[in-house]
């Protein structure tokens, strides 16, 4: 009997073809009409060190990468040593027996695949190892290799010889595991007309930024955010935008603020270390009320930390980072698909409220390859900032005028009569330096209260399961939503009254909405991937809810199974 989804894990030394095999299988699965969800870990070094690529593919949508491995492909001994204990009881193993020793008791479900020799002999080069592996995997899950072959032909369109060799290697790999065919058969995908896309979180954000109308991107490379800079560098010119790699993150954000001041929709993207360096300018943007979008693809911290691992430990800094009290909006998308829409919202909030917006993702979400519904760009709304042109009467123009909604019209260079001085010094309505108690209190109130709509109704928060669960209420943020929603479904099926609430905007915090959601629950559980339980402290400070913090600090994302276990543990208390 076939299964709805299968979890494949490829492991070996970085540089050996593990990552490319994973990419091939993911792209082929997507092309074949399957849904995918992936997770990878690689060393912080360029060459060497253990790396792993997990592909979960399913005939129905898969929201997490899965915990127990159905098919483990070992490129070297270390791969087995590191991963054997993640194997599902009925899990199958493929390995290169010239490099790997598999214990007796696993032999019956393990098949040697002569990756190296076949790659060299048939594939014509060691680099064809990935093809041999892919072929063997396809056989075991009885996955029709046509999409793979199409992709090969595409890639080597002008190198027929190479293409043929690769395809030969692919088939040879398949032959190796032929007798395991069907062992992990996956349902054929439901034939659908809908055009889906395969994207990472970073890519979805970059594409979403273009949809939102980004004009300027200034950034500095850093793992795992670099490819936002790189993708936009290639694409922005064709929509009239500009991208520049700056000398550091301070210059990156500074240039964005200059660009935004001049009327451009501006964005930068970084990871923790860069966000730390942006602290002073972040406060400036809040004070001078300049729109800007800052993507923080979180990685393991603190400091340089674990550059290629995932963690949700920048929440505090996103909310409170920087001296003094500067307003900002913090958005945490919950999936690759949500990354697209969160990017659109980020620009819209930044422009409407004239405030810096931090888009908080993490390594797992940023690099995860998900098949998602193609974003319908006709649904994208673009909110524009209020400028001098929107004023009926621009006599005695005041850049920081007190208004009903606390938002004032910006003068944009080029607009006659809009001249003002943007400044980080406390200032009056005209932007003139002013330090009286009255001015300071009034301006802080203006800068903070303009964000109130984000607490009340404007934001669609993410929920799954019961709206007001009686047994278990789960509150989380960002990338943990995938596994949590799967766990919620399972727990509900097991008869629990359970629900999850994911504030899509964490700052300003929707305290009342969260309190209502959790009001009836016996257990309120806050899972997050960090050490100090930052979200749990935030929820407690904002709502006073009596909750259980289940923070984990190991650089790995939660799985649905983890969440399921956590809930049962807490219920058992």
């Amino acid at each position, binding site marked *: 009997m076939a299964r709805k989804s299968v979890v494949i894990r490829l492991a070996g030394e970085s540089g050996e073809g593990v990552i490319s095999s994973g990419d091939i299988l993911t*792209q082929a699965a997507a092309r074949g009409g399957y849904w995918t969800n992936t997770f990878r870990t690689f060393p912080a070094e360029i060459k060497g060190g253990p790396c792993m690529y997990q592909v979960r593919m399913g005939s129905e949508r898969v929201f997490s990468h899965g915990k127990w491995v159905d098919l483990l492909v070992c490129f070297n001994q270390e791969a087995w040593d590191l991963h054997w204990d993640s194997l599902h009881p009925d899990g199958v193993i493929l390995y290169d027996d010239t490099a790997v020793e598999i214990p007796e008791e696993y032999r019956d479900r393990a098949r040697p695949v002569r990756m190296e020799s076949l790659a060299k002999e048939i594939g014509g080069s060691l680099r064809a190892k990935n093809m041999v592996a892919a072929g063997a995997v396809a056989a075991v899950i009885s996955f029709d290799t046509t999409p793979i072959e199409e992709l090969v032909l595409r890639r080597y369109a002008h190198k027929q010889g190479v293409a043929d060799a690769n395809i030969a290697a692919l088939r040879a790999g398949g032959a190796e595991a032929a007798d395991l065919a069907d062992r992990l058969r996956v349902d054929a995908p439901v034939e659908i007309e809908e055009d889906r896309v395969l994207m990472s979180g970073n890519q979805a954000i970059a594409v979403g930024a273009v949809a939102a109308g980004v004009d300027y991107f200034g950034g500095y490379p850093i793992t795992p955010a670099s490819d936002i800079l790189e993708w936009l560098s290639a694409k922005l010119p064709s*929509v009239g935008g500009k991208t520049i790699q700056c000398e550091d993150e301070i*210059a990156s954000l500074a240039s964005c603020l200059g*660009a935004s001041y001049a009327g451009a929709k501006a964005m930068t993207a970084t990871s923790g270390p860069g966000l730390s360096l942006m602290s002073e300018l972040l406060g400036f943007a809040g004070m001078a009320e300049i729109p800007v979008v800052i993507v923080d693809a979180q990685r393991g911290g603190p400091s340089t930390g674990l550059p290629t691992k995932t963690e949700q430990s920048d929440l505090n800094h996103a909310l409170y980072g920087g001296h003094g009290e500067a307003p900002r909006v913090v958005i945490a998308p919950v999936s690759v698909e949500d990354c697209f829409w969160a990017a659109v919202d980020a620009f819209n909030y930044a422009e409407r409220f004239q405030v810096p917006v931090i888009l908080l993702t993490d390594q797992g979400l940023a*690099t995860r390859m998900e098949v998602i519904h193609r974003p319908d*760009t006709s649904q994208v709304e673009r909110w524009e900032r209020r400028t001098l042109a929107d004023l009926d009467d621009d006599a005695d123009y005041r850049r920081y005028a007190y208004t009903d909604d606390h938002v004032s019209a910006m003068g944009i260079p080029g607009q*006659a009569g809009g001249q*003002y001085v943007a*400044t980080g010094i406390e200032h009056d309505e005209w932007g003139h330096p002013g330090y009286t108690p009255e001015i300071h209190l009034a301006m802080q109130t203006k800068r903070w209260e303009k964000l109130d709509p984000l607490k009340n109704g404007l934001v669609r928060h993410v929920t799954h399961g019961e709206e007001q669960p009686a047994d278990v209420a789960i509150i989380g943020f960002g990338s943990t939503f995938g596994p949590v929603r799967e766990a919620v479904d399972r727990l509900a099926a097991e008869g629990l009254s359970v629900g999850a609430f994911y504030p899509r905007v964490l700052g300003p915090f929707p305290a009342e909405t969260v309190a209502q959601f959790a009001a009836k629950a016996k257990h309120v559980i806050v899972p997050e991937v960090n050490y100090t339980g930052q979200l749990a402290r935030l929820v407690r400070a904002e709502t006073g809810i009596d909750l259980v913090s289940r923070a984990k600090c190991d650089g790995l994302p939660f799985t649905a199974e983890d969440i399921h276990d956590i809930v049962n543990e807490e219920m058992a208390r």
Partner: protein
Amino acid sequence: MSTAEKTKLSPNAYKSDLKPIWCPGCGDFGVLASLYRALSEMELDPANTVIVSGIGCSSRLPHFVSTYGFHSLHGRPLPIAMGVKLANPELTVIAVGGDGDGFAIGAGHFPHAARRNIDITYLVMDNEIYGLTKGQASPTSSFGQKAPSTPYGNMEEPLNTLGFAIASGASFVARGASFNTKALTELIVQAVEHKGFSFVDALSPCIMFNNHQEEWKQTVTDVAPDHDVTDKAAAFDLAIRGGFSLGIVYKELRRTLDDKYRDLAERAKASTIDEMIDAFSARKGAAIGKPIT
């Protein structure tokens, strides 16, 4: 709204409604006066002109000018000015600030603005001291100078700002002085009209904490008429020689960063968001082997 639409305005018309808060006699008054005149001489439209500064006494300058202004953070005027210029190349962008702002905390941005040759002007009011924080030594303070944080005398050799600018790739490098407003006005005009990154180091005495006014008036000379401003080595040689010579030290014509972006925009073939999303289509699929992220 292009700078083409010129408007005739007197220097006074470039004054804002705020009075400078500098100490009476501060060199910055002379620099500001020169700037007013230069703006008027160039007939720049205040609505199409942006003055960006950092933090310091000198960095208060934008508040006193009727153009657009950006009074930013200590050390950050250059990357901000770059962002303004790239976002709207039609604008005339002038960055201003102090020697501490530009060469202490801001030193890391200077070489990059210079080598990129972004078409902006950087006017530094160099008083060889931290004025606003009450007189500590700056990177241009002389060796041995006694100041609050160097009570036994400054132990550091001052930075040669002109030599530093030339080595960094600035395409226009000049020195002026607040007490010589006619010449300074001219230098500012030439700097702003220069296509590329132009740097003007204006001596501007801090009469409160480091008053070199008289000494400087005595000792400054003009750049020798036979100095070849296009000869980089000669320019550096002149820059590192002792004493202050006023005038243009180096000038070079190089494509500006904003020009290069214009070329790129022209070369790039237009595309749409939907075409971009097509590239991710699951059916069509990305090119195999190409790492996906």
